[in-house]
């Protein structure tokens, strides 16, 4: 009893694991523990290696002296208890159980005298892995000891009026990006049958905008002035199509005082306001 007590005291000096970053010093020493505690403990172990290391430490054993029989027995008891309590047990725990069982059976098998020299210790691989894992666990512990932002220190910031003074450069956009956006939009339009827009309409529609803009500067413009002969035949055709389209959409009105007189074009809004 007294040695058990001493052992327990010793246990408490070493953090055996971490629960959400908090070192865990206490773990139940016997196996008969309430399910809630076991669940908590399962959370405290980061995996089967952690549990195994804990069991070895509890036995005050050297890893190099891995006492495979008692450790396997205890490990199995833990795993069994976890299963009985239907705790969600990671498959990794069962893989470790199988590995332990295999090592145990190999150690128990009588070895043929001739092979004794060459055959490696079946525990060697597990010992190597436990040692490697122990290093990692120590690494995690040391990392946790580092000054941590928002736990040990906070970044210190000051407000500044400089942001308000800054002239925000608008984000750059490449033609390729815009083209891709247009391609996406074209796909959308294609999907909608009723929008039968042909690519030819492009420059016409742009010209429609230009004409509308021109008409916003003057209440009415001489029809002829809407054409720019320097653009050549193609340009004149585009302007003409644009005027027809604007007229069709009811955005402009074309008026003529008398036959063969000058044609005037005005925006529909102006036309309405002026009562034309």
């Amino acid at each position: 009893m007294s040695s058990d007590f001493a052992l327990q005291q010793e246990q408490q000096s070493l953090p055996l694991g971490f629960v959400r970053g908090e070192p865990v010093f206490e773990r139940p020493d016997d196996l008969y523990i309430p399910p809630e505690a076991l669940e908590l403990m399962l959370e405290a172990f980061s995996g089967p290696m952690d549990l195994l290391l804990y069991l070895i430490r509890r036995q005050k054993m050297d890893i190099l002296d891995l006492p495979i029989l008692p450790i396997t027995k205890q490990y199995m008891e833990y795993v069994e208890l976890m299963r009985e309590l239907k705790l969600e047990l990671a498959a990794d725990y069962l893989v470790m159980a199988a590995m332990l069982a295999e090592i145990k059976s190999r150690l128990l098998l009588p070895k043929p005298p001739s092979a004794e020299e060459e055959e490696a210790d079946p525990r060697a691989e597990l010992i190597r892995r436990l040692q490697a894992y122990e290093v990692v666990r120590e690494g995690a512990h040391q990392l946790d000891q580092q000054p941590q932002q928002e736990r040990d220190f906070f970044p210190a910031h000051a407000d500044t009026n400089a942001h308000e003074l800054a002239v925000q450069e608008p984000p750059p956009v490449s033609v390729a990006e815009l083209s891709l956006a247009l391609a996406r939009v074209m796909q959308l339009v294609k999907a909608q049958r009723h929008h039968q827009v042909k690519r030819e309409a492009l420059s016409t529609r742009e010209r429609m905008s230009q004409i509308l803009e021109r008409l916003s500067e003057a209440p009415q413009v001489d029809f002829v002035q809407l054409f720019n002969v320097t653009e050549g035949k193609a340009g004149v055709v585009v302007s003409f199509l644009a005027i027809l389209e604007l007229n069709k959409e009811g955005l402009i009105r074309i008026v003529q005082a008398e036959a063969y007189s000058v044609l005037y074009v005005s925006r529909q809004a102006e036309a309405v306001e002026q009562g034309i």
Partner: protein
Amino acid sequence: MISDTQLKQLVEAAIFAAEEPVTLDQLLGGVLSQFSLNKPRVRQVLDQLQEDYRERGVQLVEVASGFRFQTRADLGPALVHMWPERTPKYSAALLETLALIAWQQPTTRGEIEAIRGVSVSTQIMRTLQERGWVKVVGHKEVPGRPALFATTKEFLDYFSLQSVADLPALVEPTEPDTRERDTNEV
């Protein structure tokens, strides 16, 4: 008990670490709650801190919602150079809206929404107009008289385009029949 030095350090650190200005009450109820301190003592510490920082690059000021450190006002113009291009990228929604306006112009917000199947935010329309790429060229004579949007000359200049018609030429045609139509194009 807490020494004067520790108290000043703690108040200073708390204000610097806080994301928002901190009030005297927040200090007393927060970092200082474990010490029995009264308001005048903390007030005095704040006064001392204000004095300590008077000639420094940052200063302790009291604003409506509490105390905060801020950079000296006269350093503003120099500090501007810290953020040369802290510019977010434009959203796909904005670029698609722009592309649609270019393509279908003059067009209304409602027409854009009908094609994109989602509403176009006022923010997007404002951004496009502030950038000088899009402007209102008239109003459609339908109920509500919605604005007619069109692209501008600045838009063409920015993208080094002669005309909006130059734009889709960059798009790889997905269907062979659209390619044939290209030749007939005006």
